[in-house]
C-alpha cells in the first residue's frame, strides 16, 4: 500500500494516543485525589479512656463502607503538628503544659461518595468528642468532597466524549485513505476476477496489506506517544515550577507499567483498522 496510508494511520493513531494518555493521566490524578478523602473521628477526653478507644475501633471495623483506618494517638498527633510547623515548632509549643490534642481515628472510605454516610455514624456517639462549643468531633471536607466529585465526574464524561470523537476520526480518516489506495488498484481487482479468482482469494492479500500498513503506522505512533509521555513526565518531575506541583503526584503514580499497555493497544487497533478498512473498501469492487 502507499506511504500516504501509513502516514495517515501514524498521525491519527498518534493523536488518539495523546488523547488516551491525557485521559489516563486525568483519571489517575482524580482517583489519587479522591482516594485521599478521609473522615477523622476525634476520641472524647484528653487523655482518652481506653474503653472509648476500643469501642470506637470495634464500631469502625463493623462499618462495611470503610476501606481502612488508623489510630492516631495524642502523642502522634502532637508529633504530626510539630513536623507541620517545621523549624519553629519548639518555640510555638514550648508553653504547653499538657497535650491538648485529642486522639483520633483516620478513616478511609471505599468510595468517596459514601463519606457522608460513614461520618453520620459518629454524630451522636458518646465516645466521640462532640462537646458543643469545641470541635465538631467528626471532621470531613463535606463541600470540598462534593465539588471534587462533581469535577471528577465532569472531566471523566468530557474525556469519554473526546476519546470517542477522536477514535471515530481515526476510523474515518484511515478507511478513506485505504479506500483511495484500493480505488487506484480497482483494475487489478477486475483482472483477478476475470481470471476466475474467488472473492476471498482476491481479498486476502489486500486485507493482509491493510493489516501491515496499520501495524507499521500505529507502531511508530505508539512509540512516539510513549516517548513524548516519558519526556513530559521527566520534565514535570524535574521542574521547580510551583504550579506543576499538584500534578506531580498522579504522574508519579502512573509512571510505572501502563504506558507499556498502551503500545499493544494502539498497535492492535491500528492493524485491525487497516485490515477492516481494506475489506470494506474492497466490497464495492468485488460485486460480480
Amino acid at each position, binding site marked *: 500500500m502507499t506511504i500516504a496510508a501509513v502516514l495517515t494511520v501514524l498521525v491519527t493513531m498518534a493523536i488518539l494516543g495523546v488523547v488516551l494518555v491525557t485521559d489516563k493521566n486525568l483519571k489517575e490524578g482524580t482517583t489519587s485525589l479522591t482516594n485521599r478523602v478521609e473522615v477523622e473521628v476525634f476520641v472524647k477526653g484528653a487523655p482518652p479512656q481506653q474503653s472509648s478507644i476500643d469501642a470506637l475501633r470495634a464500631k469502625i471495623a463493623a462499618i462495611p463502607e470503610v476501606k481502612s483506618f488508623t489510630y492516631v494517638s495524642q502523642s502522634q498527633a502532637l508529633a504530626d503538628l510539630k513536623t507541620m510547623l517545621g523549624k519553629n515548632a519548639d518555640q510555638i509549643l514550648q508553653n504547653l503544659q499538657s497535650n491538648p490534642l485529642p486522639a483520633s481515628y483516620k478513616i478511609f472510605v471505599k468510595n468517596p461518595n459514601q463519606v457522608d454516610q460513614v461520618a453520620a455514624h459518629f454524630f451522636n456517639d458518646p465516645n466521640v468528642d462532640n462537646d458543643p462549643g469545641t470541635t465538631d468531633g467528626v471532621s470531613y471536607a463535606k463541600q470540598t468532597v462534593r465539588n471534587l466529585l462533581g469535577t471528577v465526574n465532569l472531566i471523566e464524561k468530557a474525556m469519554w466524549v473526546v476519546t470517542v470523537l477522536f477514535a471515530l476520526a481515526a476510523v474515518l480518516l484511515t478507511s478513506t485513505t485505504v479506500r483511495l489506495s484500493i480505488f487506484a488498484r480497482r483494475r487489478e481487482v477486475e483482472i*483477478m476476477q476475470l481470471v476466475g479468482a474467488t472473492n476471498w482469494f482476491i481479498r486476502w492479500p489486500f486485507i493482509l496489506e491493510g493489516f501491515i500498513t496499520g501495524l507499521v503506522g500505529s507502531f511508530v505512533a505508539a512509540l512516539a506517544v510513549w516517548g513524548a509521555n516519558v519526556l513530559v513526565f521527566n520534565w514535570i518531575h524535574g521542574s521547580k515550577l510551583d504550579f506543576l506541583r499538584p500534578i506531580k503526584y498522579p504522574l508519579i503514580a502512573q509512571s510505572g507499567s501502563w504506558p507499556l499497555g498502551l503500545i499493544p493497544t494502539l498497535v492492535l487497533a491500528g492493524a485491525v483498522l487497516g485490515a477492516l478498512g481494506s475489506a470494506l473498501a474492497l466490497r464495492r469492487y468485488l460485486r460480480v
Partner: protein
Amino acid sequence: MIVFENVSKMYDQNVPGMMDASFHIEKGEFVFLVGPSGSGKSTLIKLVLKQLEPTDGRILVAGRNLQTLRRSKVPLLRRNIGCVFQDFKLLPNKTVYENVAYALEVVGEHRRSIRRKVPEILNLVGLSDKTNSLPHEVSGGEQQRVSVARAFVNHPPLLLADEPTGNIDPETSIGIMQLLLRINRTGTTVVIATHDREMVDRMRRRVIALDGGRLVRDERRGVYDSET
C-alpha cells in the same frame, strides 16, 4: 459450447447492446466476431463471461445456463474460459512469470506443477527470456503473448479474445493469430472479436457479423464484409 437464444441486452436509456441474437458455437470451432465499434462484440463477450446480465433470452456456456448460475460459481465459470483483451489486462506489479502463474494459483494448483507449467507455456509463446520482466518493460506484442499464455495455461475448453491485435502492429498480429490457431488445434474453442479485416479475409473461418446489436450474418467460411 456457446448457445445464445433470443438474447437482448439493453443498456441504460434504452441503448441496445444486443438485440434478439441467436446462434450456436460448437466445441472446437474457430469463430470471428466482426462489426464496427459499438456493434455489440464486446457486449457479447461480457455476456459470456457473466460480466453483464442479459435483459432477455437465454445463454448457455458449456451446458450451463448463465441465468441460473449462482454468483459464487462465477469464478468457476471463468476458470474454464481463457480471456485475451485489447489492453492485455496484465497485473502491473507482477512479473511475466507471476502473471501467468496467477491463473494457476487461482485454481489452487500445486506449486510444483506451477513451476513446471509456466515455463512450458512461456516457451510455447516464445517468452522464455522475459520471465522476470514486468509488463511495462516488454513490448505490446510481448504483453499480448503473456496474456495469451495466461489465458491458455489452464487449457480451458473456451478461449475468448476481444480485439487481441487491436493494439499491436500487423507483423506481430500474425504471430498472435498463429498462436490462437495452434491453441484451437488442441481442441479449445476460440472466439475472436476483431476489426482486422485482412486477417479475417485471409483465414477464411466462420464469421459472425454484428451491427447495432443485431446478428446480421453468420457464414461458415466467411470474410469481413458481406460478399453479396
